[in-house]
């Protein structure tokens, strides 16, 4: 019985410790340290983002892809054009070279 009472007393006194906990002041340098940390991170971020923003980066990438695609298409169509010209010159006995074509014409005459 005595032990139970003792235990209950101890429990109550342990729980009452909550009321005796005093205030603890934050370190006087806390504000400076935190401000430094906050704005260090921001400055690092702005080095990249100030002029070359994410939207601009995406737009640049898109331009690059479009220009490359156009160049490829154009290259393919130029090849087709050359092939067509070659085919037609062979077919009709015509050549690019003006000297050769003159010679051929002279021979024919």
């Amino acid at each position, binding site marked *: 019985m005595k032990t139970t009472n003792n*235990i209950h007393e101890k429990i109550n006194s*342990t729980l009452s*410790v*909550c009321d005796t*906990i*005093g205030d603890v002041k934050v370190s006087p340098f*806390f504000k400076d340290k935190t401000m430094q940390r906050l704005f260090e991170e*921001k400055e690092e971020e702005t080095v990249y983002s100030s002029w070359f923003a994410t939207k601009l980066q995406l737009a640049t990438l898109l331009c690059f892809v479009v220009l490359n695609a156009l160049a490829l298409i154009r290259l393919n169509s130029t090849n087709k054009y050359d092939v067509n010209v070659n085919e037609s010159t062979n077919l009709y006995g015509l050549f690019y070279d003006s000297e050769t074509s003159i010679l051929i014409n002279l021979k024919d005459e």
Partner: protein
Amino acid sequence: MEEEKFIQELKDGKKFAYSKLIELFEQKVFTTCISFVPNKEDAEDIAQEVFVEVFKSINKFKENSKLSTWIYRITTNKCLEFIRKKNTKKRFAFLQSILGNEIPFDKTQYFTEMNHPGILLENQEQSEILFKAINKLPEDQRVVFTLSKIDGFSNKEISEITNKSVSSVESLMFRSKKNLKKLLENFYKKNM
């Protein structure tokens, strides 16, 4: 209106606004941190993390609650995150010790290594026992008990911080006290 203007300045990343914010909240945030984590250095690190989080997430703040409530919510979450990490590390160290790797390990190390300048020397032992018991409570009970009994928030404030109704805060408070008494009873029965 005044708060709205202040929040807008924070969203714009104005340095003077953050300076004012830290001045206004540093003590209260730190006090909440040291209530959950009774170690001055760790509490300061967590408090700093709170302001970094505010800085990063201020644009996500929808202004459904007061700025102070939002900041205390972040503080509580950061403290719980810290405690969870510490407990995981302890579990990992325990596994390592089972597997035979030599890691110096003390099960109760973190919550008995108290460095709380607000605790009187004659209460040091009892405080250690109390904080160990609080750490054994389920998370929601631990939060409500700490915010109420150690940090001194009212039930209404706790309900806003934890996004719970006042009645459920009261019920959690009742259960936490009951469980704490049980935990302390077991402890004293073993150590009498």
